[in-house]
């Protein structure tokens, strides 16, 4: 499509929305937004808007899904039909199923499920408005909502993606950058330990570019982890 023709970064390294290569879009965090849930979180990130509700721990039923030694974590990622430019038809969707699974895997790595044998914890991630990077916003908001519900965890999971555009590695692609992007590296980072519980990547990155994107994500995750901690202490961030 002639990527070279569309100049997304100017000669001073400034991106179309005024950010520098390593900058993250504006973020806000609000807790308790689903009154009937045990914990909930609304996160806006650029023009992404995500709502997460947590229900549980509660009895797992039917009984065949119970685990004797731990709770079952039931995570669903879903995009509202009106969340994107073209309407999304409700129903089965392979992309959503995969994101639900990797998000669940990432959260299982930090939630102390063994404290709640035979029970179930439901995590419902709803994308209300999608820009780019919804899986990162959903995972980050889900870990905040679990904390809001009082579920014991070893750490939060903060997720952010860097990518490549016009041959330059930058942090946290927005929608227009994503359309022309050549690679995308979302990671899920535990801010306290610096370990990862989530990793995906698509596209084409040399080893050097890959390292650069990795480093941007690590730095950004520490900053965003600070926002999350503040929100959990004060009931919100940047409102």
């Amino acid at each position, binding site marked *: 499509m002639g990527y070279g023709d569309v100049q997304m970064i100017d000669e001073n390294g400034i991106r179309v929305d005024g950010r520098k290569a390593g900058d993250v879009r504006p973020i806000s965090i609000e807790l308790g*937004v*689903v*009154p*009937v*849930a045990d914990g909930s979180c609304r996160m806006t990130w650029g*023009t992404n*808007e995500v*709502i997460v*509700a947590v*229900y549980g721990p*509660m009895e797992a*039923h039917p009984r065949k899904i119970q685990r004797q030694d731990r709770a079952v974590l039931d995570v*669903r990622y*879903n995009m*509202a*039909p*009106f*969340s*994107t*430019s*073209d*309407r999304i038809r*409700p129903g089965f969707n392979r992309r959503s199923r995969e994101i639900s699974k990797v998000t669940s895997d990432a959260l299982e790595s930090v939630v102390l499920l063994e404290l709640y044998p035979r029970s179930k914890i*439901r995590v*419902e991630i*709803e994308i*209300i*408005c*999608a820009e780019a990077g919804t899986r990162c916003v959903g995972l980050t908001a889900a870990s905040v909502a679990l904390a809001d519900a009082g579920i014991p965890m070893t750490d939060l999971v903060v997720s952010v993606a860097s990518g490549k555009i016009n041959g330059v590695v930058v942090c946290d692609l927005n929608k227009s950058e994503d359309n022309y992007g050549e690679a995308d590296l979302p990671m899920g980072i535990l801010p306290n330990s610096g370990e990862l519980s989530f990793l995906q990547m698509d596209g084409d990155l040399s080893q050097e570019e890959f390292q650069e994107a990795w480093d941007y994500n690590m730095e950004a995750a520490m900053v965003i982890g600070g926002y999350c901690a503040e929100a959990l202490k004060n009931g919100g961030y940047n409102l």
Partner: protein
Amino acid sequence: MSIPLVPQLLRSHLIELAENDQRLDGRGQWDGRDVQLEVGILGNAEGSAKVRMGDTIVYAGVKFQTMTPYSDRPNQGGLMCSAELRPVAGRQHEPGPPSPESIELGRVVDRGIRESGCIDTEALCIIPGEKAWQVILDLYAISDDGNLFDAFALAGIAALRNSVIPLAKFELGEDIPLDVSKTPIMCSYHRVGGRYVYDASGREELGGDERIHITLGADAHVHSLQKGLKGTFTAGEFAELMKQARTKGDELRDLVHSLEGGN
């Protein structure tokens, strides 16, 4: 399908309250909860609204697609209304195919809007027999503390009245507002503790019996009715509900119009 236990204690308590003309949250028989209505709040939708009635919170989003008109109605576009009751909205909402309850919910809200004739489907025609607009109204519950019917209906009509036909995006000219000629309002009544109340909460629904939905337009024209759940009612009871719905409907219609500049 899980079976909710019939909460006998709750039912007894509700009967006692009703005998003293009281409700669980202190409201009077015909009082609604506080209503917050916002419009134009979803960035990727062509029309949108958010309604909060107590702890019940719903979104409505409108999208436009082009369609080929049906061969027997070559000059008409379409209106589709879809209600989703996802598990985010409450502990009792399990994932799975749509339940009979959620199908009824979507269809009753849809009829209340569609049957009022508020949208002229002939005005949605682009090229007769070839291309027309399909208006898709998606209703989406985030928190269910009872009376999703009225919350959906209110968010739905407000979102439609707030919509813009995206001509520019489809390279068909400049965007124009969708013409919505009426403002049908649904009022729902639930038999709780033996008598009907307006705007039942989640716990009132849990311990209640049958439900009646009345959708009225201006001048108290009736556009849609539905009785749901087990139970019977008398002509006298219905007449009282109709009277209440006329008053309440006018009040909520004014709320919708108050958010619209020129109307």
